[in-house]
């Protein structure tokens, strides 16, 4: 019985493999290319000012915002790190001098 099943599986494997392969390509649909379509002819010119609002979005404020955020975030972090470090180092120095004097503040 087992041998018969094994033979059946081996015989049907070549037919099942293409279907499995097709399924696996479906997993990576991003790699598929749609059929090339020729661009549609332009039948009218639309001025930029008449575009819908979502298409009029200027790039410059977004670009400036992105770079400003990066610089501010990095600068803010460096300042915060410097302040934390100077606070801890100040406390370490104070404790060390207290220990050297043999007293505790």
């Amino acid at each position, binding site marked *: 019985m087992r041998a018969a099943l094994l033979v059946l599986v081996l015989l049907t494997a070549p037919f099942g493999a293409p279907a499995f392969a097709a399924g696996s390509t479906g997993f*990576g649909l991003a790699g598929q290319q749609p059929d090339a379509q020729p661009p549609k002819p332009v039948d009218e010119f639309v001025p930029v000012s008449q575009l819908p609002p979502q298409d009029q979005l200027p*790039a410059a404020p977004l670009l400036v915002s*992105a770079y400003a955020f990066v610089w501010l975030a990095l600068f803010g972090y460096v300042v915060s790190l410097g302040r934390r470090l100077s606070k801890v180092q100040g406390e370490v120095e104070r404790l060390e001098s207290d220990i050297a004097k043999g007293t505790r503040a």
Partner: protein
Amino acid sequence: MPKWFMPLAAINALMFAASPFLIANADYEATMGLVQKIFYYHLPSAWIFLISAIVCGIASARYLFRGSPRHDRLAYAAAELTVLFGAIVLVTGPLWARKAWGVWWQWDVRLTASLMGWMVAWAYLLVRRYGGPGSDKLAAGLALFGMANVPFVYVSVNYWRTIHPPTTVVPTLPVDMGAALWFAVACFLLLFVLLLRLRVHLEEQRARLDSLYLSLDE
């Protein structure tokens, strides 16, 4: 602090000051135009975000299995930098997407996995801060999950349907765009090394302070 720190910090500041000139001189991308220039800071930040999560995960694993406080300090420092660079990625990305895709956010695999990695890093910091005794081990376990998420974030764009550009974009960049990108990568990588060293130094000072308090109590 080591002797190399200040000269390298000065070089890094100069590199960051020079980077906008290289970026401005790089060609405009054909379909996205000006807004694509966000890429030159977005991608290096994303790589540092992932590298930082890996550093945090490896240091946490070593802390869990060997118990060395040095590795714990490194993991804590790297977790904070993961949050910083993750914030940069998650803010600059939507600013770029708003113009390029027409939406601020898409719940696709890469964006969602990146957000998840960022939240894991936040969870690490919150557990360390408010978790009480033993929270260092718990946070180290969290960092392992954060590190496991990294390969998933990186390869996700190549396997799933997404509007995010795949990883194959970088090797195909023309020379001037590639030069601006790799210069920015060098800037961010050096900055990461410097900030990591400074943050570890802060943890070392805190450990020293704790030992001083203990010696006073004895």
